[in-house]
C-alpha cells in the first residue's frame, strides 16, 4: 500500500508540469489553433523562472516574469497564426526551435546554479486525518493545488459559461461563430495567450518543483508528450488530469526499477514514456477508427472573413 501511495505521489509530482502544458494546449486547440510549440514555451518558462528567481529572490516575481514572457510569445504565435493565417504546424515548430535556442542562450550563465528557494507547501485543513487520502495530499505545493483548481475551473468554464460555448463554437465552426457575432480572431488571440501562459507555467513548475536547476533542453520532449496527451484526453480537462498522472508515473518507472536493483540499462528505461506515447496513440487510432476523435473540427484551419466560399 505504501508503495502504491509512493508511486501516486511521484506520478503527481512529475505529472503536474505535463498537466499544466496539456491544459494550456487544450485551451488553444479548442479555439481551433494547432499548438506544436509547447516544448519551446516550456523551455522558455523554465529558463525565465530560473533567471528571474535568482535575480529577484522572489517566487512571485519569477512567476510573473514567466507569465509575461509566455504571454508575449503567445501574442507572436497569435499574430502569425490568426492575423497572418500562416501554416500552424510550421509555426509551432518555429516556436519550439526558437524557444530551445533562446532558452539555451539565455540560460547558459545560469546552468547548474540552484534556485534560491522552493515553492511553499500547503496542507488542506482536516484532510490529513483521513486515511490514504490524507497521505496522498500531504505536503503538496501550491502549484499542484493550483493545477487541481484549474482542472475544475476549466471544466466549468467550457461547459457552463457563455464564453465556454463561444470557445466550442469557434473551434468547431468559425464562420458560424462569426455570423453569430462572436469575435473569432480576438478570442483566438486570447486563448493562445492564456494557453501559452499555462504552458510557460508548466516549464516553470518543472524547474521550481521537479528539478530545481536549469539545464539546457531540460524538458526532454515533455512538451511533445503534452501534445500527445491532448489527443489522449480528447480535449477534455478532466481526462487530461488522469492522462498526465499516468505519464507522470511512467516517467518515474525507470527510477523505481533501478531502486529495485534491476539490471536493465537506464537508457532503455528512459525510452518508456516515449514508446508508450506512440503505442497509446496507435491503440487509440485503432480503437477509434470508426469514431470521431473528439478534436475540434476546425483545428488547424485559419479563419478570415471576406473570403469567397
Amino acid at each position, binding site marked *: 500500500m505504501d508503495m502504491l501511495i509512493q508511486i501516486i505521489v511521484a506520478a503527481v509530482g512529475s505529472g503536474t508540469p505535463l498537466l499544466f502544458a496539456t491544459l494550456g494546449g487544450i485551451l488553444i486547440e479548442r479555439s481551433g489553433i494547432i499548438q506544436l510549440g509547447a516544448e519551446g514555451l516550456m523551455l522558455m518558462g523554465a529558463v525565465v523562472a530560473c533567471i528571474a528567481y535568482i535575480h529577484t529572490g522572489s517566487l512571485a516575481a519569477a512567476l510573473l516574469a514567466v507569465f509575461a514572457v509566455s504571454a508575449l510569445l503567445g501574442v507572436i504565435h497569435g499574430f502569425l497564426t490568426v492575423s*497572418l493565417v500562416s501554416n500552424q504546424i510550421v509555426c509551432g515548430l518555429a516556436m519550439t*526551435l526558437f524557444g530551445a*535556442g533562446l532558452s*539555451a542562450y539565455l540560460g547558459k550563465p545560469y546552468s547548474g546554479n540552484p534556485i534560491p528557494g522552493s515553492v511553499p507547501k500547503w496542507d488542506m485543513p482536516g484532510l490529513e486525518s483521513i486515511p490514504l487520502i490524507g497521505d496522498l495530499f500531504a505536503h503538496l505545493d501550491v502549484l499542484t493545488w493550483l493545477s487541481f483548481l484549474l482542472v475544475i475551473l476549466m471544466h466549468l468554464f467550457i461547459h457552463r459559461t457563455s464564453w465556454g460555448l463561444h470557445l466550442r463554437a469557434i473551434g468547431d465552426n468559425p464562420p458560424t461563430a462569426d455570423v453569430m457575432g462572436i469575435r473569432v480572431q480576438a478570442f483566438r488571440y486570447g486563448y493562445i495567450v492564456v494557453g501559452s501562459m499555462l504552458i510557460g507555467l508548466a516549464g516553470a513548475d518543472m524547474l521550481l518543483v521537479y528539478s530545481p536547476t536549469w539545464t539546457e533542453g531540460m524538458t526532454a520532449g515533455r512538451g*511533445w508528450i503534452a501534445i500527445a496527451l491532448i489527443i489522449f484526453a480528447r480535449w477534455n480537462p478532466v481526462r487530461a488530469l488522469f492522462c498526465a498522472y499516468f505519464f507522470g508515473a511512467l516517467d518515474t518507472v525507470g527510477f523505481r526499477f533501478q531502486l529495485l536493483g534491476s539490471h536493465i540499462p537506464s537508457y532503455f528505461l528512459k525510452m518508456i514514456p516515449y514508446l508508450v506515447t506512440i503505442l497509446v496513440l496507435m491503440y487509440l487510432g*485503432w480503437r477509434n477508427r470508426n469514431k470521431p476523435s473528439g478534436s475540434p473540427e476546425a483545428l488547424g484551419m485559419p479563419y478570415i472573413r471576406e473570403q469567397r466560399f
Partner: protein
Amino acid sequence: MKELAAKRMRLPYRLDYDPSKKINVWWMTIASVLFALAICGIFIAANGMNPFPVYKKLLSGAFGSSFGLTETLVKSIPLLLCGLGVSIAYRISVWNIGAEGQFAAGAIAATSVTIYFPDLPIYLSIPLMIVFGIAAGGFWGLLTAIPRTYFQVNELITSLMLNYVALLALNYFVFGPWKDPKGFNFPGTPMFNEAQTLPVLGDTRLHLGLLFAIVVVLLYAFTIRYTRWGYELRLIGANAEAAKNAGIRISRHILIVMVISGGLAGLAGMSEVSGVTHRLMYGISPGYGYTAIIVAWLAKLNPIGLVVSSFLFGGLIVGGYSVQTLGLPSSISNMLQGAILFFLIASDTIGKFRLRRND
C-alpha cells in the same frame, strides 16, 4: 441598438487578405533573414555585447577563409541530406520532424559495421556502412509511417518521440558496450581505421559525403520533374483528394516516402561518422535534423534552394562556433535559426495582405 454598432471604434485602415496576390519570394526571404538578425541583435545587445562585431565574426568565421568555407561545406553535407529527406516528405504533407533520430539511427548502424566487421577492406566496408546507414534511417522513418498510415497517428508526435528513443540508444552504445576502452572514459567508440573512413579532399576535412549529397540533389530534382513517381508525389502534395481519384494509393506512397526520407537522414548519419568524426560519439549532431526543417522551409522544397539554404545554415553553425571566442554561447545560432523560421513563415503570407481604407 443601432447606436451601438456605430459607436464602436474604427481604425482608419484595415488589411484584406488576398491569397492570389503574387509576392516576390526572394525579397521576402532576404527580408526575413535580416529581420531575424535584427531581433537576435537585440538579445545580443541585452547581453552587453555590440551585435555588429558578433555578426561580422559569425560571417567571417563561416565564409571568410578557406578553412571556414570548407568547414561550412562539411556542415552543409548532413544539412543538405537531411533537408532533402524532410523535403520529400513535406512534398506530400507528411510532417517528418524525426530527421534527428533517423540521422542517429544511420550513424549507429554504420558504426555497427566497424564494430562487428572490423577487418573488411575499404571497398566492402564503406558500401556496407552506406547500406546499413540508409537501411537503419529508412527503418526509423518506417516506424513513423506505419502508425500514420495504419493507425491514423499524427506523424509529428511519433517522429519526435522516436528522436528521443534514437538518441537514448546512441547514448547507450557510446556510454556502454561500444565505449572505447582506451578512451579515458570519453563517451565514444574507438576511432575508425583507414578502411572505414570516407576519403577527403587534400588536407581539408571535406569528404566524399559531399558527392553523395550532390548526387541525391540531382536525383531529387530529376525525379520530381520527369518521372511518373515524381508526378504522383506532386499530385498528392497539390491535392490528396484528387490524387485518390487518379488512382494513386496515398498510404503506399507515405510508406515509401518515409523510408526514403529516413534513409537520406541515415545516409547523413553514416557520412558524418565515417567522414567527419571517424567514430560514433555523444552529441554527434548539433541538431542537424531540426535545422534541416528550416533548411527545407527556406528552400520552399526546391532543389536549388536546398543547396543554397543548407550552405547558409552550415555557415551559421560554423559561425556559431567562431563567436564562442567572443564569449558568447554557440546556441546563438540555434536562436537565429528559430527566428529566421518565424520570419519566413510570416513572409509566406504577410505579402498577401493589402492595406485598404476603412470606409
